């Protein structure tokens, strides 16, 4: 049940209580908050417990971009409070829905405000635009007792106080000095006095005023506490802890694809970042954007009806926008050209929530990132995450020439890790890859994204030099293999107890869709991995570029958009 108390805005901190890289601990109506300011200035007010095991996040670490829980190192993103990384399972992309409870926040009059169910704006306070914020005074007494005492607060004989309808107290003197006191109900019998003065003081005058009021308010505190200690105190509030989403009850399967949420975004910026490469910034029209992890991509629904996938380049905590890179490809089916030529700043587009089929492990002792051309985009997001966490990595950027280097501003964050390899022929590229991959080893991982031939070369070189398949991670933009869609076969859906026929010219995915079975998909070219499905029985004719050779040989999963059955029948885990 929501009460008026829960609908109100309350100040819970002074703005100066939130320096960067600090986590402030607050309480309101019995509920505790972890409050932290990200490096971009955004203030986060979250429930003070990690969703995993209930540990207070106020003992965790604010790295400027994310808040890290002290118990198991789970990382939660600035703004969205979505979990971006679970170290116990470094190869998984966390379920997007693991999201901490967040509370509305506003910063005004030098104070940080929140409320469990607060809506709209904090109350407008006339005359306090340049307020001086007094030192907050916590005390062990009910708000009623505090309010009563504050009405009689005096710093000179002319002071007159009265209680406002919103529960605050105003005290003014004959010189025009006025203080508005807000009483933060920490718990049923504990409060904090937060006062603001209606003038902007500076230097010694400010210090003197702050000292004087700190002293006077502490005297008031001692009197109120003495009176409170004689009274029976009300029972503490018992805030209800929200239950986690139902789909989190069961241990998530190894792969976790959330539902494709359709988001509407505006094109906030559109600029060339290199020859033929456009940088596009999307911002949300209303509300926030969902949490992403490095390696994630979004589907962009274009005005001409095409849907295209683009990797996010955002760094950790950069949660107020998405930035993608689009290379103009005149030979494409029209997606990139449409973005280059037709999409304008201010346009509204539909995009999907980020999906991550290219998760970044952070349990490597060293990570090698290899990008070719426009394949640089997911690598930038990865490098930025590794860099913020101080993990060891190197970044090899294969590019035609200087004018083709995209996202140089983002790259400047990790200048020490980058090596450019410009204008190399295929042979020279192969030789360079051989050098880059010369040292396989325990807990060393390679990530590669670029044109198909380069990916193939990297995979082959890595295999020749002794890298385990599981340590070489890649993302194809497209599947350049010829897909054979001939022949018919049956699919048994184990969980749905259905048998369906896939005819000549149809894909498994199409047949599933036609029969009302919702299977997420994205590129539908066997490159992105979204439509992956478990195989229980039957031989698969793999035609994708997503699965590794080991995975293909294991015959445990299938890309339903392009792959088919070698046998007469496949039993799928749906």
């Amino acid at each position, binding site marked *: 049940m929501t009460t008026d108390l829960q609908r109100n805005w309350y100040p819970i901190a002074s703005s100066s209580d939130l320096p960067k890289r600090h986590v402030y*601990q607050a309480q309101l109506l019995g509920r505790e908050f972890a409050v932290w300011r990200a490096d971009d200035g955004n203030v986060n007010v979250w429930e003070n417990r990690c969703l995993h095991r209930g540990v207070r996040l106020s003992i965790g670490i604010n790295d400027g971009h994310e808040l890290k829980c002290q118990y198991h190192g789970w990382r939660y993103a600035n703004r969205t409070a979505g979990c971006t990384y679970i170290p116990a399972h470094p190869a998984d992309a966390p379920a997007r829905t693991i999201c901490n409870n967040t509370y509305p926040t506003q910063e005004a009059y030098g104070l940080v405000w929140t409320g469990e169910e607060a809506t709209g704006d904090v109350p407008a306070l006339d005359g306090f635009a340049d307020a001086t914020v007094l030192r907050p005074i916590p005390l062990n007494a009910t708000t009623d007792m505090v309010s009563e005492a504050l009405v009689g607060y005096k710093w000179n004989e002319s002071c007159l106080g009265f209680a406002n309808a919103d529960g605050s107290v105003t005290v003014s003197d004959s010189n025009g000095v006025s203080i508005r006191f807000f009483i933060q109900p920490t718990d049923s019998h504990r409060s904090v006095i937060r006062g603001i003065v209606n003038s902007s003081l500076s230097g010694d005058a400010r210090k003197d005023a702050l000292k004087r009021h700190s002293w006077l308010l502490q005297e008031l505190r001692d009197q109120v506490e003495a009176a409170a200690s004689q009274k029976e105190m009300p029972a503490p509030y018992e805030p209800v802890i929200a239950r986690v989403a139902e789909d989190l009850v069961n241990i998530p399967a190894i792969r976790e694809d959330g539902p494709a949420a359709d988001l509407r975004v505006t094109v906030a910026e559109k600029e060339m970042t290199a020859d033929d490469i456009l940088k596009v910034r999307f911002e949300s029209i209303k509300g926030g954007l969902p949490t992403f992890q490095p390696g994630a991509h979004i589907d962009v629904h274009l005005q001409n009806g095409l849907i295209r996938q683009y990797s996010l380049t955002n760094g950790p905590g950069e949660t107020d926008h998405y930035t993608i890179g689009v290379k103009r490809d005149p030979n494409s089916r029209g997606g990139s050209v449409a973005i280059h030529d037709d999409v304008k700043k201010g346009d509204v587009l539909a995009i999907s929530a980020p999906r991550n089929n290219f998760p970044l492990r952070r349990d490597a002792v060293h990570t090698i990132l290899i990008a070719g051309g426009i394949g640089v985009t997911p690598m930038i997001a990865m490098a930025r995450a590794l860099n913020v966490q101080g993990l060891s990595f190197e970044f090899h950027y294969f590019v035609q020439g200087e004018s083709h280097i995209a996202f140089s501003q983002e790259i400047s964050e990790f200048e020490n890790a980058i090596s450019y390899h410009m204008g190399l022929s295929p042979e020279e590229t192969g030789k360079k890859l051989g050098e880059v991959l010369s040292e396989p080893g325990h807990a060393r991982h390679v990530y590669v994204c670029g044109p198909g031939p380069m990916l193939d070369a990297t995979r082959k070189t890595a295999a020749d030099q002794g890298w385990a398949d599981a340590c070489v991670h890649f993302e194809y933009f497209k599947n350049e293999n010829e897909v054979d869609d001939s022949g018919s076969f049956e699919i048994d859906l184990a969980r749905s107890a259905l048998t369906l026929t896939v005819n000549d010219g149809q894909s498994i995915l199409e047949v599933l869709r036609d029969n009302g079975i919702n299977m997420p998909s994205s590129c539908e070219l066997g490159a992105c991995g979204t439509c992956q499905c478990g195989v229980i029985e039957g031989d698969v004719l793999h035609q994708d570029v997503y699965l590794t050779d080991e995975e293909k040989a294991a015959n445990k999963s299938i890309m339903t958009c392009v792959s088919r059955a070698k046998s007469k029948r496949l039993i799928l885990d749906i």
Partner: protein
Amino acid sequence: MIKLYDYELSGNCYKLRLLMSFLGLEHEAEPIDFYPGNQHKSPEFRQINPLGQLPVIDDEGLVLRDAQAILVYLASKYDTSENWYPSSDPAILGQVSQWLAFADGITTTASAARLHDAMFYTQIDVDVARAGANKLFRILDEHLYFAELDGQDWICPGDHPTIADIACFPYIMLSEEGGVSRMDYPAIRRWTDRFKRIPGFVVMSGVFPAGPAVEKEAERAA
């Protein structure tokens, strides 16, 4: 080499480990089974410290007890920069001594509450100890709030921490183990973050390190 009669879970021993780490001083630890063995009350140990308390150091034959006294000794002898114990400035020296005495008060309140809760020192009146700790924390929080206002990061004036910070830090950081929350002391909480970022900072069991500080713009430019 300096020998420290040490117990990992003792905040008073931790004060000395901190200072020696900040100064880059090597030492040899002689672990004492404080709990449950009560080795500090054994006849053998009482010949080293008749009070039967930790910590004690033995520096080439000079045996000293009392954490605050040892901080004064180690800083005076080994910190040639005189940053940690600025003995040439009487005004600062007076303030350092004042806060060293305050740290003793933290030990008799916050540390006593912790011994009660964790190690069953049932003779301690834990409510009195907690109330005493809160009273001291209120005073320190106000002091640190106004220090920040003056651009001062540490308990005593100057741009370098002193042994007063070291003496106050451990039992404030461990106060929750005695049931004393620090939520009402935001200036103290910010100071503990700053303290953990002093170069050479080491943890003890029960204290976690701080995350990375913001790079100063100047350093970024350099």
